[in-house]
């Protein structure tokens, strides 16, 4: 293809990516380096139906003047990144120096909002991704052996968790896990513990969220792997059968190697998806026991009075950085595969 044609061909995509992906990221990065202006305060008397009190109030005219001059706010460098609500360098150093044991240090680290959220985000990412892929693969193998007539309905039922909006799906499960709900009540009967509640302890909450994650992410792997199964060469499978390979051996030595490139792709997409886990935390009202990086951004932006843009922006930038770090091994692998094939 001539360079000119190629350029014209991809121009719309490049422009769209610049406008809708690159520019917003640049704006978020710039925003993360600023904090709000100093507020000019005056003392006033506030009166309401319940009496009068003397309180401070923002001098709007004076503050608006400062804002007019420099609309972005005060430049703060990396202050948004290293304060206690984010990377908390000062607090981490203190924990490192004064903790007596590893356990105590870990507990104190988990008391810092960013690290607490990061811990859950990573656990979610690395438990849900492989488990959901395994589940999806197992369903794909199962559906593939069904008679042709039964496949349609089976596929429909299998991808239901993906069709349901995540927030709705998590709310449905949340109510089922309620002690009066069908799952919660059954668990109480099975374990013989009438006070058992899956929403009360951090460990059980985490398990519920992880199970939910696997349930809702499984179908995506299923769809991709099922499509992949249709391309497995019948000849190879037949010769393996003639050689006396069992069903398991055929899966292990023929199907899995054939689907490996697909697995890389699924892992890539799922890791990115799971790193920005958010809806189940809101749906399950799990804020007390589990938070994620995306939840921190949300929490900054729906604050009581005003949005903490600087804080939200710095968490966003670190989330983007986290996604990049996660993807590096997968990208390296893809690059190697690509080179090998080129040779």
């Amino acid at each position, binding site marked *: 293809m001539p360079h000119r044609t190629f350029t014209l061909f991809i121009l719309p995509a490049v422009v769209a990516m610049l406008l809708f992906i690159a520019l917003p990221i640049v704006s978020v990065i710039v925003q993360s380096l600023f904090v709000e202006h100093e507020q000019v305060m005056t003392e006033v*008397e*506030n*009166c*309401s139906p319940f009496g009068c009190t003397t309180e401070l109030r923002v001098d709007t005219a004076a503050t608006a003047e400062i804002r007019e001059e420099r609309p972005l706010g005060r430049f703060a460098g990396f202050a948004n990144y290293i*304060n*206690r609500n984010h990377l908390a360098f000062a607090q981490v150093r203190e924990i490192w120096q004064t903790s007596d044991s590893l356990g105590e240090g870990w507990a104190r680290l988990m*008391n810092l909002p960013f690290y607490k959220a990061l811990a859950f985000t990573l656990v979610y990412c690395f438990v849900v991704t492989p488990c959901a892929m395994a589940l999806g693969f197992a369903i794909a193998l199962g559906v593939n052996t069904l008679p042709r007539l039964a496949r349609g309905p089976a596929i429909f039922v299998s991808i239901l968790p993906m069709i349901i909006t995540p927030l709705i799906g998590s709310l449905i499960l949340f109510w089922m896990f309620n002690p009066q709900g069908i799952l919660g009540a059954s668990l109480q009967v099975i374990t013989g513990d009438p006070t058992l509640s899956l929403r009360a302890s951090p460990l059980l909450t985490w398990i519920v969220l992880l199970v939910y994650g696997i349930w809702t992410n499984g179908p995506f792997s299923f769809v991709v792997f099922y499509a992949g199964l249709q391309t497995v060469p019948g000849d190879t499978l037949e010769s393996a059968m003639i050689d006396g390979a069992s069903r398991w051996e055929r899966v292990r030595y023929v199907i899995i190697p054939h689907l490996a490139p697909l697995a890389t792709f699924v892992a890539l997409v799922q890791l990115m998806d799971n790193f920005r886990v958010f809806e189940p935390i809101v749906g399950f009202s799990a804020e*007390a026991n589990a938070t994620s990086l995306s939840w921190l951004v949300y*929490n900054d932006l729906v604050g009581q009075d*005003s949005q903490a843009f600087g804080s939200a922006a710095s968490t966003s930038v670190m989330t983007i950085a986290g996604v990049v770090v996660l993807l590096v091994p997968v990208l390296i692998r893809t690059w190697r595969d690509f080179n090998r094939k080129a040779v």
Partner: protein
Amino acid sequence: MKLTLKAALALGATLVAGTASAECGIEAGSVRILSNDFEALRYINDGAMDCASDSVTVEANATSEHKNIQGPALSIDPAEYTVAVIANNSIVPLLNDGLIRPLDDLIAEYGQQLLPNQVISTGGEAMAIAFMGNGQHLFYRKDILDAAGLEVPTTYEEMLAAAETIRAQGLMETPLAASVKPGWDLAAEFVNLYLGTGDEFFAPGSAELAIDNDNGRLVLDTMRAMTEYMDPDYLTFDANVLNQLWDAGQVALMNQWGSLAGAAIGETADPEIAANTGLAATPSIGGNSIPAAALWWDGFSIASNISDEDAAASFQAMMHGISPEAVAANPTVATWLVDGYAPGDAAVGVIANANAGARAYPMTPYMGLLHTALSTELADFIAGREDADQALADVKAAYDDAATAAGFLQ
């Protein structure tokens, strides 16, 4: 025949609408209302919408997301909404950014119906008109207290003792409930109790946080002691869940919003529970005499970035919506602050709190930052994973960072 009937009805409707807009006395303008979404506010919005005519348009958007959209919506010129229905806390960001206009002229011209205490003023300028009061107060089950031989508790210490008695007598395993879901509710619970101690949240004349004291620890210890008598799922309880638990007969004592009292004793509630539901002032804390709960007002403000004509039209439409006649037609849905209102059964608790000297939720510019810090940092404490000292230190650290980034602290 059918057609004529329809035509007659349509004509009748036009006539009614015609007289209604004449009542409002608005000549022309556009009225656009943004409000929270609960029963009382929907009545007011409907009342304001009666003012619509050929030359006056009235629209209302009632949504629980109002707090998140009011800032951006009123910042643009002309503003997306002409009227913002607000409360003690949600007026603050609008005041901070100068997005609402002084109402003194409008009150002089169109506000003859208002009582003096309906006017919310700051620095001598009227900035909002309040029309209803609200607040969390005690709900108690008369039958359970009678069976246990208990009086209605007036202090938190008595409330804990009552819970122990009810449990010991086998009447209820988890007699207490509170809206302590991490987030807005949990923080509001702390603010209620801390106001009850009579202490201040901030050092006088500054944004310096001052809750790390014995009263702060007393509040936290009380909150934790209460959870001993709650369902183990208490971390997921917000105000709406509390009403469901109450209606299911699972709770004997709780502090709950006055605006939800009507639902708890109304026609849709379980008749047996509703008949046994009593409402009273919030218990006091730490030997203090005032109820440990914040008082709230709901009211409206007029946007700055709109024409004077629209502002006048909006003010008049809202005056029609909160007129004594409109309130008299819906006496049970809220604790109205409007002239001529006779309190109904559901208003007992809020009025008892106000009469006993409960304090109002502060209108301080940085109170919202403290509320946010409390809402996330008290989660570990209320779940029983850290002690009060650590919780207070965490709140201070989170608040200091947020207040510095917002420009309130150096």
